């Protein structure tokens, strides 16, 4: 009888505490579920981006006055996060105050500069641009539109992304305010 009691006592005294084991088990289950969730491929929000930088490749300090016939030097930043490789095209066009693209419509004028590049997912490129504006005018909009090649329709589609920069184009030696 005494021996049986001792055996029961021995059973109760566990090497690994039940509660400690339950906590460890919970940690392992949560870690594994989290890891599996990370492993399953998900569709990320696809997007492309365009940015206009100054001659030095920095944001801000853009030229405000441009001399007609002389080159304006800028840089264009293009980035692809579509989840696949994309063929992107940047077109520089000239607009005016109130005549710039929107998210849905592009500027209906001929491009003065055109650049096509293929970017892998997560890749970006900064392209130097040199534009020469020949006609004088105030508040001339230098517009950079981003287009993407659509493989289903085999045509270029406007992404709705654009940048614009207003400049005053003057004759040599004449500077408007």
């Amino acid at each position, binding site marked *: 009888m*005494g021996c049986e009691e001792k055996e029961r006592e021995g059973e109760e005294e566990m*090497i*690994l505490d039940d509660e400690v*084991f339950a906590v*460890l*088990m919970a940690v*392992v*289950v949560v870690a*594994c579920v989290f*890891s*599996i969730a990370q*492993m*399953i*491929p998900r569709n990320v929000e696809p997007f492309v981006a365009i940015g206009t930088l100054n001659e030095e490749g920095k944001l801000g300090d853009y030229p405000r006055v441009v001399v007609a016939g002389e080159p304006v030097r800028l840089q264009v930043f293009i980035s692809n996060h579509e*989840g*696949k*490789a*994309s*063929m992107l*095209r940047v*077109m520089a066009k000239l607009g005016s105050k109130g005549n710039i693209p929107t998210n849905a419509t592009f500027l*209906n*004028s*001929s*491009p003065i500069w*055109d*650049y*096509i*590049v*293929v*970017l*892998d*997912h997560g*890749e970006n490129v900064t392209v130097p641009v040199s534009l020469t504006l020949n006609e004088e005018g105030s508040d001339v909009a230098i517009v950079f539109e981003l*287009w993407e*090649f659509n*493989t289903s329709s*085999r*045509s*270029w589609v406007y992404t709705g992304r654009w940048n614009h920069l207003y400049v005053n184009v003057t004759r040599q030696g004449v500077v408007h305010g």
Partner: protein
Amino acid sequence: MGLRYLLPFLLIMLVQPLLQVNAQPEKVEEAFIILESLSREGMNVSEPIRLLNSALALYRANKTEEAEKLLKQALGRLRELEDELPSYKFWRDLKLYSSIAVMAFIPIAFYYFFPRVYAFSWYKTRRKWVVRRRRGREKKK
């Protein structure tokens, strides 16, 4: 009379930007269509992208012959990758599903093995211990 000429002229002016947008070497399109489908599947397409960008740079510089050579090279590489696609997809899926299976098995394995491994190591670290009857227990008896 004036309107008869003005209308087509205006139409051409309107359509011209769109025509320019579609103007580009057909082979570049062909290469990119293959490249995009491969990249969508997660294949490494950095080499064909580099070749295609070099070809585009040569087209910009009006070096058409050299550009076409590179384009041909890119197309060749893309076709090779296209042939490898079924086997790539098979191994990619196998790797993914087996990793998930291994991850899902870890809690079960932990539940089964951990107490045993712990007990084993517990005994092993105490194997030189000498067991002595405690006096208090003896009294209880």
